[in-house]
């Protein structure tokens, strides 16, 4: 078992204990444990097929783990974890407002109109509220995708490869938005294979390879653990780390 504790974690909002998942003979996630603090920005990094998406889908409640538990803690633990899948998961034939209104109803939010209004403001899409989603740019679609995940004001938000389809400017706007969320107390867990992005934005990184959690700590700790030189960047350090672990 590998346990990755948050360094400044007094009251975790999410506790993952010994979670495992198999698909036939293949072990997609193996005995993974970690905790997430309120307002923490946690990156799950790893090569393709490492089990990042499977782990996130278990945390989101889409898949049931074969073993282990996922528990929410804290004052808003009754609220559902927010989920933003890798590809935009909204209806392209509906308008921005119709999408937000539909998912707000399904999430059973208290004040429907105020919530939709708030999300339109947060995503700066108020002027595009009546536009069909299919007519928006990839960046704006991703903002709606994230907004839907935030409708119920979840204490924890999961993002799977959130900036994969965005250009650099859109990516910067997205990270500003996510950082603002964490400053308001929302914990954010995102999966990525963009190591530089994880280094730049994450408070802590979890390294996953072949379903196994190999590391949990700050990006700087990962760099020093990898044995890479000072002049080598984070991506080189990450590759070196995987090699030392036999991956």
């Amino acid at each position, binding site marked *: 078992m590998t346990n990755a504790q948050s360094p400044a974690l007094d009251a975790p909002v999410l506790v993952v204990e010994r979670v495992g998942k198999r698909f036939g003979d293949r072990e997609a996630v193996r005995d993974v444990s970690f905790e997430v603090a309120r307002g923490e920005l946690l990156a799950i990094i790893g090569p393709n097929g490492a089990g990042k998406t499977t782990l996130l889908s278990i945390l*989101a*409640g889409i898949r049931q783990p074969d073993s282990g538990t996922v528990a929410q803690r804290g004052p808003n633990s009754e609220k559902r974890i927010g989920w933003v899948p890798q590809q935009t*998961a909204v*209806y392209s034939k*509906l308008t921005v407002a119709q999408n937000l209104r539909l998912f707000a*109803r399904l999430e059973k939010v208290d004040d429907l109109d105020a919530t939709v209004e708030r999300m339109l403001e947060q995503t700066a899409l108020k002027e595009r509220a009546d536009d069909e989603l299919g007519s928006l740019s990839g960046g704006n679609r991703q903002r709606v995708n994230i907004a839907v995940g935030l409708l119920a004001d979840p204490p924890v938000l999961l993002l799977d490869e959130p900036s994969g389809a965005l250009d650099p400017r859109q990516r910067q706007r997205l990270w500003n938005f996510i950082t603002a969320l964490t400053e308001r107390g929302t914990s954010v867990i995102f999966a990525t294979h963009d190591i530089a992005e994880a280094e730049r934005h994450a408070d802590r990184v979890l390294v996953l390879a072949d379903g196994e959690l190999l590391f949990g700590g700050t990006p700087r700790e990962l760099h020093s653990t990898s044995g890479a030189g000072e002049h080598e960047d984070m991506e080189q350090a990450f590759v070196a780390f995987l090699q030392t672990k036999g991956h």
Partner: protein
Amino acid sequence: MRWLLLKDLQILWRSKLLLGLLIVYPIAIATLMGLALSSGPEKPRVAYLNQVPDNRSTIRLGSEKIDIKKYTDELFTAIERVPAQSRDDAVAKVRSGAVLAALIIPADFTQKLSNSGFSAASIEVIYNGDALKQSFVRSTISSKLALADAALSKQVNRLASGYVDVLLKGGELDVLGTQFKILGLEKSKRAIDEVMAASPSRATSRRLGPVQEFAELAVANAGRAKDVLNTIERPVEVEETTLSGRRTPLDAFAVAVAVTISLMFVCVLLASGLLALEREENTFSRLARGLVPGGHLIAEKIILSAACAFAVSLVMLIGISLFVPLDWGRAGLWVLALGAGALAFAALGVAIGSLAREVRAASLLAFLLSLPLAFLALVPSGGVSPLLYDVIRVISAVFPFKPALAALDAAVNGSSPGLGQSLAHLAVLIAVFGVAARAGLRRFA
């Protein structure tokens, strides 16, 4: 579930092409079906060549002359006549497709009729190679030839009966233009009776006795010759037998088939597409997080697709009823049959939709599966070998088309098997395909 229904209705409303098709389709099909079933077939164009010379267009039966043109005209009440100049011209017209067939009356037709009777005379019909059109023309010509034949036979029968009357009762007989006076069998017998009464000698009795008996027998039996002649008028008596089972007229059955096929396509395509859309848009991963239970999602797609297809097919049925008389007293049963059929097709649709990742793949799969099943369900018993038919019956029973058709046929036309049996069959299929779709959803996540 109601918010998902609202969402799907909003999506349908925004899909203008699909919405337009859903409105135009039943109206167009109902109108076409109605026109096709209510109007008679057009006259087939047939090349006509009469090689009989004008001065030999009549046949002479005793003192009567019969103009053969009067009888060939009977043919052209059902055929559009296209004059041909020669046999080669007639053949060329058939080959080019200008006409569907050619009808040629040979020059010696009337001569053979006069000299040798009906069996020796013949006409020539040339068809093109199109099996369907050939069948249509052949049946049209055959029926009209039979009518013409019957009319001619009636005329001959009338003349022959006249001759028998003359032989029996006496009168004038025309043989090749020469008039003969015939005494007749009845008068002959009376004359013999009078001679026998006036001269009752043994020698007279011995010589005239057999003649008297012959005359008596001839008078008694000559009338039967007319009965024999009457059989010429209708040489073959056709007995019609209605088999147990289907009693639906073809046009009424065609209505049931057309409406069921429309119900199937609208329902299966819509249901499969709506479910596959959740996967194509990646929204299933959101819904599956406890926002909407899988069973509710399946039920919502079935209800919406069935409702749309039900409305479309009901409009279609009402439209067709403007052309083909349907029993409105059974309208309640139509609703029941259409409703059950729609739910079963929608259940099949979501089962198909649960197998596909994209709407287009789901539509293609639905189309590829539905069409052959509809054709299989329409294969008649006796059309294939008994073993193959049993296999087809089993396949047809596993899918909703055949029971839906049987239910609608029973509702509209009162045919067997009864509506109850078909509704029970459909209820089982709704449950089976609903469960299959629910199982298929597990692959979505």
